[in-house]
C-alpha cells in the first residue's frame, strides 16, 4: 500500500507547475530533434544539460528524459515521409511507412505511429510502476548465454524481414555480419579489416549504414523518375489521417504484441530498443496470414515496431534507475546528469528517494500525453513538407544526412562511407537485395560474437552453459520451436509452390515502382 501512496506523491510532484512546464519543454525539444534526421537525442540532451544546473534535480531529470523519449516520437517522421531514418529503429518503421507515403497515406501512417508510440510508452510505464524491482532482478539473471540465444533468435527472424529471394535475404544477413566484423576484436584486441584507418577501430558507424542504404540510396533512386514522381500528399484533413474501423482493428494486436516485446527486451541492459523493434517487426510479418503485404505499406508493419520502440525506451529506464546500469550511451549520459545533480541511481534510489523516482515515472506518463497532444496537430505540418518540390527537398536531405553523419564523431571519413553505402544501397535496390536483413546482421553479429565468446569464457569452454540455466533452456526451446515451424512452412510452400508463382510477374512490376 505504501507504494500507492508513493505513486500519488509522484503524480503530485509531476503535476506541479514547474515539472509540467519543463516536461513540456523537454518533449517539445525532443520532438523537433527527433524529426531532424541524424541529430541524435544525445546531442540535444548534452546541450540542455547545463541549462538544468539551476533546476531542482527532479525537474531537471524530467526535462532531460522528456527530450529522450520525445525524440523517439519524432524519429519516425523523416523516415516515413522521406525514407531518411535518423535512427535504426526508424529504419524499421520506414520499411512500411515510406510505401504508405508513396501511396498518399502519409497522414495515416504518422497518426498510427503517434498512437502506437503512445500506447507502447504508456503500457510500459504502467509495467514499470508495478514491476520495477522484479524487472531489475530478472535483468540480472540474464548472462551472456541468454543474450546470445536471444540474439540468435533475432538473427533467425532477420532473414524473414526482407521480401523476395530467401537466398538474397540470407546473403544480406551475411554481408551485414561481414561489415560487423570491422573493428577491434574485444577478446583478443586484434584489429580486423580496419586497413589501418583509426576511424574504423570502433567499427563502421551504424548511422552511416542506415543513412546510406536508406537515405542516400532513396535520393539517388528518386531523382531519376522525378517527373513521374508527384509527391502524393493526399488530403490533409483530420479525417484522412484517422484510421477507419477496419484499420483500427488491424493495428490493435500488433501494437500490444510490439509493446510486450519492447517492454521485455528494453529492460535488458545493453540490447535495447533496436533489437526489440526489429523483432517486433519480424514477429508481425511471421505470424501474418499475408506476409507479402509487408514492405508495401502494411499498417501492422509500422504499428508493432513503433509500439516496441517506445515501450523499450521507457522500460530501458528500469535498469538505469534501479540498478544504476545504463543500457546505452544516452542512458549513461542521463545517469551522469543525475550524478551531477547529486542523485545516485542504483538499488537504494527507489527506497531513499521515492518522491523523485515516482515523480519521474509519473512525468513519463504525463510526457506521453503531452506528446500525443503535440504530435497530432503537427502531422498536418509534416505532411505538407511533401508538397515542397523534390528538387529543393533532396539537396536539403543530402545536407541533413551529411551533417547528421558528420556530427557523430566529426570524421570526414563517415561522409565518404555514407556515400559508398548509398551506392551499395542503390545497387541492392535495383537487384532486389533487401536492406533490412543487412542492418540486423550488422547490429547483432558483433554482439553475438561477444556474448558467445564470453559465455564460453565463463563456463571455461563448456557448451553446457547454453542449456544448464533455466532461462536459457526456455530460449533454446523457443529457438528450436521456431526452427521446426519454419521447416514446416518451407515443406508446405514447396508442396504448394507451383500455383502461387503464376501471379508473380504482375506483382513484380508493381513493387518495382514503389521501391
Amino acid at each position, binding site marked *: 500500500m505504501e507504494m500507492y501512496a508513493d505513486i500519488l506523491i509522484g503524480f503530485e510532484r509531476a503535476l506541479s507547475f514547474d515539472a509540467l512546464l519543463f516536461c513540456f519543454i523537454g518533449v517539445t525539444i525532443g520532438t523537433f530533434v527527433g524529426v531532424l534526421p541524424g541529430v541524435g537525442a544525445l546531442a540535444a540532451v548534452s546541450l540542455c544539460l547545463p541549462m538544468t544546473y539551476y533546476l531542482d534535480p527532479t525537474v531537471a531529470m524530467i526535462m532531460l528524459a522528456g527530450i529522450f523519449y520525445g525524440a523517439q516520437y519524432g524519429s519516425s517522421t523523416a523516415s516515413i515521409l522521406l525514407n531518411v531514418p535518423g535512427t535504426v529503429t526508424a529504419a524499421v518503421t520506414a520499411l512500411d511507412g515510406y510505401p504508405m507515403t508513396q501511396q498518399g497515406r502519409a497522414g495515416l501512417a504518422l497518426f498510427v505511429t503517434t498512437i502506437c508510440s503512445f500506447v507502447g510508452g504508456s503500457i510500459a510505464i504502467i509495467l514499470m510502476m508495478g514491476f520495477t524491482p522484479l524487472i531489475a532482478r530478472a535483468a540480472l539473471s540474464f548472462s551472456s548465454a541468454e543474450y546470445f540465444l536471444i540474439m540468435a533468435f533475432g538473427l533467425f527472424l532477420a532473414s524473414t524481414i526482407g521480401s523476395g529471394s530467401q537466398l538474397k535475404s540470407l546473403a544480406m544477413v551475411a554481408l551485414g555480419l561481414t561489415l560487423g566484423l570491422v573493428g577491434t576484436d574485444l577478446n583478443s584486441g586484434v584489429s*580486423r579489416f580496419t586497413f589501418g584507418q583509426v576511424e574504423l577501430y570502433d567499427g563502421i558507424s551504424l548511422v552511416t549504414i542506415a543513412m546510406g542504404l536508406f537515405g*542516400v540510396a532513396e*535520393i539517388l533512386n528518386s*531523382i531519376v523518375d522525378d517527373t513521374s514522381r508527384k509527391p502524393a500528399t493526399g488530403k490533409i484533413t483530420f479525417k484522412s489521417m484517422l484510421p477507419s474501423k477496419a484499420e483500427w482493428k488491424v493495428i490493435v494486436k500488433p501494437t500490444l504484441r510490439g509493446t510486450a516485446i519492447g517492454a521485455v527486451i528494453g529492460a535488458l541492459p545493453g540490447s535495447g530498443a533496436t533489437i526489440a523493434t526489429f523483432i517486433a517487426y519480424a514477429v508481425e510479418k511471421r505470424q501474418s496470414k499475408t506476409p507479402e503485404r509487408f514492405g508495401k505499406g502494411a499498417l501492422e508493419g509500422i504499428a508493432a515496431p513503433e509500439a516496441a520502440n517506445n515501450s523499450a525506451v521507457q522500460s530501458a529506464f528500469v535498469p538505469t534507475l534501479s540498478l544504476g546500469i545504463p543500457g546505452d550511451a544516452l542512458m549513461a549520459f542521463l545517469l551522469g546528469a543525475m550524478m551531477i545533480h547529486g542523485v545516485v541511481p542504483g538499488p537504494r534510489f527507489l527506497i531513499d528517494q521515492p518522491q523523485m523516482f515516482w515523480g519521474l515515472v509519473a512525468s513519463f506518463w504525463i510526457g506521453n500525453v503531452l506528446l500525443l497532444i503535440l504530435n497530432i496537430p503537427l502531422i498536418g505540418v509534416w505532411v505538407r513538407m511533401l508538397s515542397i518540390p523534390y528538387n529543393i527537398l*533532396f539537396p536539403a536531405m543530402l545536407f541533413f544526412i551529411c551533417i547528421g553523419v*558528420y556530427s557523430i564523431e*566529426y570524421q570526414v571519413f563517415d561522409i565518404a562511407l555514407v556515400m559508398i553505402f548509398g551506392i551499395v544501397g542503390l545497387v541492392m535496390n535495383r*537487384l532486389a537485395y533487401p536492406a533490412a536483413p543487412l542492418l540486423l546482421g550488422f547490429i547483432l553479429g558483433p554482439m553475438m560474437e561477444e556474448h558467445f565468446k564470453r559465455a564460453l569464457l565463463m563456463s571455461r569452454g563448456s557448451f553446457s552453459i547454453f542449456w544448464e540455466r533455466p532461462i536459457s533452456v526456455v530460449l533454446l526451446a523457443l529457438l528450436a520451436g521456431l526452427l521446426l515451424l519454419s521447416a514446416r512452412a518451407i515443406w508446405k510452400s514447396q508442396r504448394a509452390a507451383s500455383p502461387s508463382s503464376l501471379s508473380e510477374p504482375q506483382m513484380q512490376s508493381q513493387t518495382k515502382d514503389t521501391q
Partner: protein
Amino acid sequence: MEPQENTEPGQRSGPWEYAVAAALFLLGLYVAFEGANVGVGTLRRMGPGFLPVAVGCGLALLALGILFELRSGGRPKLDAPVRPLVMVTLSLGTFAATVAPLGLVPATLLLAFIGAFAERAMTLRRAGLTAIGLAALGYVVFILGFKLPLDAFWG
C-alpha cells in the same frame, strides 16, 4: 519460403546480377582468407579469425546459391541513374573536403549547389537560392541552435 517475386521468371538475368553475386562470392573468400590469417582458434576458444572464416564461407556459399538461382531469372538491367550518381557523389565529396577547412556555411553552399544539379532540369538560379537557403538554415539550426563545435566560416 515465400513466392520468389523478385527473381522474375521469364526475364533473363543481366550481367549486373551475375557481377554482384560474383562480387559477394569473392568478398566472402577474401574475408575467410583474411580471417584464417589472424588465428581461428577452436570452437571452445575462438580466435579473432573464427567468425570471419565462418561468415566469409557462409557469404561465399550463399553467393554461389544466388548464382545458381539466377539461371532461372533475374533483373535484366541495372538502370543506374548516372547523372544523380555523379552529382551526388561529387556534392557529398565536396562537403567532406571543405567542411573542416572552409567551415560549415561554405561547405553547405557547395553541397547544395552541386547536389541540386543531380536533376537535369535544375536552373542556376534555383540551385543558388536552394543553397543559400540551406546554408542559412544550417547556420541557425546547427551553429546557433545546437552549438555544434563547427566553424561557420574558416579561421
